[in-house]
């Protein structure tokens, strides 16, 4: 029944890398939640273990089905995700002034996380048919633009600016990967430089302030600016060797906001120092290069583009999250894959890994 080549071509390296990072993530999360003084946080750790078990099931599912069938399913997946995004705006649960969560019985899900994958799959379907060495023309870019802009608007409405920007970045990376025609690119760049100031002119005062604070947290020294300072102190104070596991003081005293989700890298860097954070960053770099290598070895466009899209998603998450904790990026609610706490984050990441395994494993189907 099972083709023996499935076993032969199975990407044990990728799986090993994933398991390694996930274990490091669980250790870091343990430190982030265990030393806080507020009791219920500790249960988060066990919840995360449960999420990982769910994540493993989802990962297995997403590499068992032939990824080529996603080509057919793309429109349905996309529409379902958009419906979820719309319903979250209507029925969603308010948490901290935003509607991001959809309550389905005992679990609450964040449809914006799934939307990222839906966008990648539908863009892949489109690009795999259109791509040519000359690049995409403006007319060909219209559909991908619409595919991106709809979830973007729906997510901005929640409001969740971070995830919305992430979708644009992922979609942009995939589009640039399949190449934009030189004239069209020139046109787009000019249009943006002209339109930018115009849009700025039409924004209301408070919107401008919000964007400026977003770009420069120092404008808000009591909120984002303070978090950045504390995060930088946490990371820097780790120095080369780190303060040691569970010895981080910034984290323990709950000086860091969201230390188990968005700022978990600060906890990790404080306790493990340069050596530990370097290890984690190198592991992420290897994972991303590995993902691109899968794209490299895949012999048909759908698989290649899908692998690039999925890898781009992991890349942007890592880059923005780590950059943010070190004060290089605006503060946005972007999680660090495998390490941040959160069911939606774990599951989407595991889907990504599942898809990469999937593409890697089936590459023989297209060998000459």
């Amino acid at each position: 029944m099972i083709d023996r080549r499935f076993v032969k071509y199975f990407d044990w390296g990728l799986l090993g890398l994933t398991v390694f990072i996930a274990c490091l993530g669980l250790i870091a999360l343990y430190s982030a939640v265990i030393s806080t003084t507020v009791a219920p946080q500790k249960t988060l750790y066990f919840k995360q273990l449960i999420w990982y078990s769910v994540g493993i099931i989802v990962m297995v599912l997403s590499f068992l089905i032939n990824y080529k069938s996603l080509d057919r399913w793309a429109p349905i997946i996309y529409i379902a995700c958009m419906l979820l995004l719309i319903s979250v705006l209507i029925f969603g649960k308010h948490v901290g002034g935003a509607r991001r969560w959809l309550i389905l019985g005992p679990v609450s899900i964040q449809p914006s996380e799934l939307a990222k994958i839906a966008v990648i799959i539908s863009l892949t379907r489109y690009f795999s048919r259109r791509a040519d060495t000359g690049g995409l023309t403006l007319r060909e870019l219209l559909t991908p633009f619409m595919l991106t802009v709809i979830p973007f608007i729906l997510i901005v409405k929640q409001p969740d600016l971070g995830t919305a920007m992430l979708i644009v970045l992922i979609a942009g990376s995939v589009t640039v990967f399949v190449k934009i025609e030189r004239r069209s690119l020139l046109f787009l760049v000019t249009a943006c430089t002209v339109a930018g100031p115009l849009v700025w002119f039409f924004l209301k005062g408070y919107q401008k302030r919000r964007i400026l604070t977003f770009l420069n947290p120092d404008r808000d020294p009591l909120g984002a600016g303070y978090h950045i300072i504390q995060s930088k102190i946490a990371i820097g104070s780790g120095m080369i060797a780190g303060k040691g596991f569970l010895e981080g003081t910034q984290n323990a005293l709950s000086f860091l906001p969201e230390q188990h989700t968005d700022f978990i890298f600060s906890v990790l860097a404080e306790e493990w120092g340069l050596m530990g954070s370097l290890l984690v960053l190198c592991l992420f770099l290897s994972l991303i290069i590995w993902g691109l290598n899968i794209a490299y070895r895949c012999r048909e466009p759908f698989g290649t583009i899908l692998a690039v899209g999925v890898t781009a998603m992991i890349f942007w998450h890592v880059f923005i999250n780590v950059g943010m904790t070190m004060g290089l990026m605006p503060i946005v609610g972007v999680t660090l894959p495998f390490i941040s706490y959160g069911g939606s984050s774990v599951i989407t990441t595991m889907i990504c890994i599942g898809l990469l395994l999937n593409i890697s494993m089936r590459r023989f189907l297209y060998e000459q």
Partner: protein
Amino acid sequence: MTKYLKTADTEWYKQRVIRAMFCVAGAFFILLIRLFYLQVIQGEELRRLSENNCIRLQSTEPSRGMIFDRNGTLLVDNRPSFDVSIILKDAKPIKDTIDKLSKYINVSASELMSKIENNRTGSHYKPIPLKKDIGRDALAAVEVHKFDLPGVVIDVKSRRHYIERQRAAHLIGYLSEINSQELESGKYPECKGGDYIGKFGVEKIFESFLHGKRGGRQVEVNVMGQVVRIIKTVDAQPGHNIYLTIDNTLQKTAEMLLKDKAGAVAAMDPNTGHILALTSAPSFDQNIFVDGMSHKQWETLVSNPLRPLENKVIQGAYPPASTFKIITAMAGLEEGVVDEKTTFYCPGHYKYGNRVYRCWKRGGHGNVNVVKALAESCDVFFYQVGQKLGIDRLAMYAKACGLGSFTGIDLDHEEAGLVPTAAWKKRRTGIAWQGGETLSVAIGQGYNLATPMQMLVLTSAVANGGALYTPLVLESVNTAEGSVVIQSKRRLAGRLPAGKQPFRIIKKGLREVVNSSKGTGRIAHIDGLSVSGKTGTAQVVGRSKDPKWSDKNLPDHLKAHAWFVAYAPSENPQIAVTVVVEHGEHGSSSAGPIAREIIRTYLKKDELQP
């Protein structure tokens, strides 16, 4: 060129992937450099800052906007309150510190310890509040022994201060500590536990203007927890000041006049809808909500049968009684069922079906036309007008006059009152409307319910020639520096459903109420000033239903409510007043003098300041 030549093949994709790999490597290189910079180059300095968690955040409260009357008289401001709290990290040894502190601020050490225990969950660096508003003597003691009290922090907070006890309490409302539901509701994103927010009245409705914006500063502290360097400061933005439409002098008069009574007084500028005074009695001291009240104080407030916490001007729905005759007269004249000359004979009662409906005047009024009927409040005349109109036409006019719906005043908990119709009764009770009930409604009894505010808006509309204005309590909102943010403008809510002629006749009748020798409101007469008005006596028990009570021996809680609506001067009205005295019996005797004094106070003052 033909497209197939450009088909993207595997080789082409491979080149693209390799480029992507270089991009990723570049991006990670940036991250590594930054990591190296923070952990190696800046590592020492940042490690030092982390040792004592040197960088802390202190928040500064905005000062809440003040509230003034229309002439700029200060009604509500803020006073400093000295709050003691403790930072556990710095307070060592804790036992010693608490013992000493308890002596200075007169709170038992065990009570202080239990407060600390309740707050253990939070960070050791967060101040735990121990006692608010310790007063200047205790403050001096704590300040003198500052060095014996490590970790003890005194915060100067501004606390709401209502300058005159009970002044316009129902209008201004009060502040109180935010509760957990309000915090979770997301309506107060700026607030945290322990903050005070408006809970009632203007303080609540205009919370967003009054509140201001929290500020704060990032500071570096030493091992003792003392600030050694201020890194960044964001100034708190004070809340906006609010000018109300009320006139403090008039408000004071109204409150004095209602002293020891239960009821409501409200006055309005009939040409703009600005509320000049708004009183509900009995009242309460707003300061106890801010300073914290004992359980007993709260019990007294809520168990008082005279409902001091209720704003009777907008929440009290009473039968409008004879003041409703204004509407019956308007409907009758406009619909043409009577005209100025129509007279009915009043023998003191009116027979309808097999029941006899009495006039309040046993001996009867003799021949009455509409003007005399208003002036002497003849029930028999209006029974017949009501009968000719029918309940649904009458109800239509009552609704058009603003009854049965909200006036739209900017205050919470407004009641809509009730305008009964045949369909309403059928729906409500299942029993068909009886013709006799129309007669009761025509004189303002029966199912009819109206709030003093609705009657005030109606009286103002009669006075100004038909414009129903939304009552306004806000004159303007100014920034702390004095520039105007909002200047309120009068809001037309509708027009009375009558032409010029009916108005002339009604106004003549209302003028006679006060000025004719037999008018029911003679008591409101002021020499040298022409006042118009209408009395009302709203029965609590049906006049004929319970024969064992004659008018004389009724217990207080069954006595009728007294109404008086008035405006003056009759020709060029400057003020409209509504008075309700609960269980005050006759409109003329208890409510009339209050209306007279309000008008006198207001117009006399106007003469002095032309």
